[in-house]
């Protein structure tokens, strides 16, 4: 059988989501952001809520998220995406509102905002990409950086005496009564990508249940910041990150 016999419209099983724009993503090769953008676009397309979804993009590598997914967006100041999403969801309670934040944005400068948004039980979805580093600014230490991990500001590895301990913010948020669904996923293998998509779908569907914040953490890689190839970065993530940040649902009510 020739390839031209297989490459036909009726045999199509997977193609680029219609919600993803033709802009070439500025992310480094192999970046987890690209996979999660794709999954968010696919979930919104499958739920058919393109005209009812409002995203809030953060500061960090994903600051240009509004260039890539064809929905309505707002851009928030560093770490303040949950506060902006709170306002949008209260003014437009019929819309699906989500924030898309990295670990420097959410766990460091935006720690107060996410804590109180989750404690108030706002009706929003939070997508949290945890790659244990500040990728955009050149690979500095983030609150989620692992002990012993080398970054540009911890050249001898993170030392607990000097820099404190890695922050498991997802577990902290799961203890708050305002969250209804808290989960940690990854996007390194096809199976993990499918699980993450299901988690995101559930999170968006929870918006209609009006039960509070749905929080989806995706443990990702920053191969430029970690100074590894994309394949090695995924391997390193499986070996080291999953030990500190175990995958799975933490809370589901």
């Amino acid at each position: 059988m020739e390839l031209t016999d297989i490459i036909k419209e009726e045999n199509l099983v997977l193609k680029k989501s219609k919600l993803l724009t033709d802009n070439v993503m500025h992310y480094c090769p192999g970046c987890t952001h690209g996979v999660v953008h794709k999954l968010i676009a696919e979930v919104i397309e499958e739920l058919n809520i393109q005209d009812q979804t409002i995203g809030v993009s953060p500061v960090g590598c994903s600051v240009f998220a509004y260039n890539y997914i064809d929905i309505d967006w707002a851009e928030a100041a560093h770490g303040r995406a949950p506060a902006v999403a709170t306002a949008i969801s209260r003014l437009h309670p019929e819309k699906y509102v989500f924030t898309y934040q990295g670990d420097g944005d959410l766990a460091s400068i935006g720690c107060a905002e996410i804590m109180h948004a989750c404690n108030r039980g706002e009706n929003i979805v939070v997508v949290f990409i945890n790659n244990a580093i500040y990728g955009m600014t050149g690979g500095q230490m983030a609150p989620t950086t692992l002990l012993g991990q080398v970054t540009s500001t911890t050249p001898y590895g993170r030392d607990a005496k000097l820099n404190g301990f890695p922050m498991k913010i997802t577990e902290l948020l799961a203890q708050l009564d305002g969250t209804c669904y808290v989960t940690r996923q990854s996007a390194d293998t096809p199976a993990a990508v499918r699980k993450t998509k299901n988690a995101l779908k559930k999170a968006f569907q929870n918006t209609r249940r009006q039960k509070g914040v749905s929080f989806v953490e995706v443990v990702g890689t920053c191969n430029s910041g970690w100074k590894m190839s994309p394949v090695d970065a995924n391997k390193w993530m499986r070996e080291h990150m999953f030990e500190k940040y175990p995958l799975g649902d933490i809370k589901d009510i």
Partner: protein
Amino acid sequence: MAKFRGAVVVDTEHCKGCSLCVVACPTKVLDLHPNVNGKGYHYAYMKNPEACIGCASCGLVCPDSVITVYKKNVE
């Protein structure tokens, strides 16, 4: 012989050559091409097209959504 035959079409100009699809492929169909695209990346291509079963694992892990997958039942 495999029940299904698949085919992968890569948008070579937008591929960044991260090779995540190469390691995700269970039947070792894909590899990075010795040539480069306009941006200087070695793009992914079907090195061994007969082995493709159309499972779409490559497309799932692709961060830049440059992979389109087709699958046909051959029985």
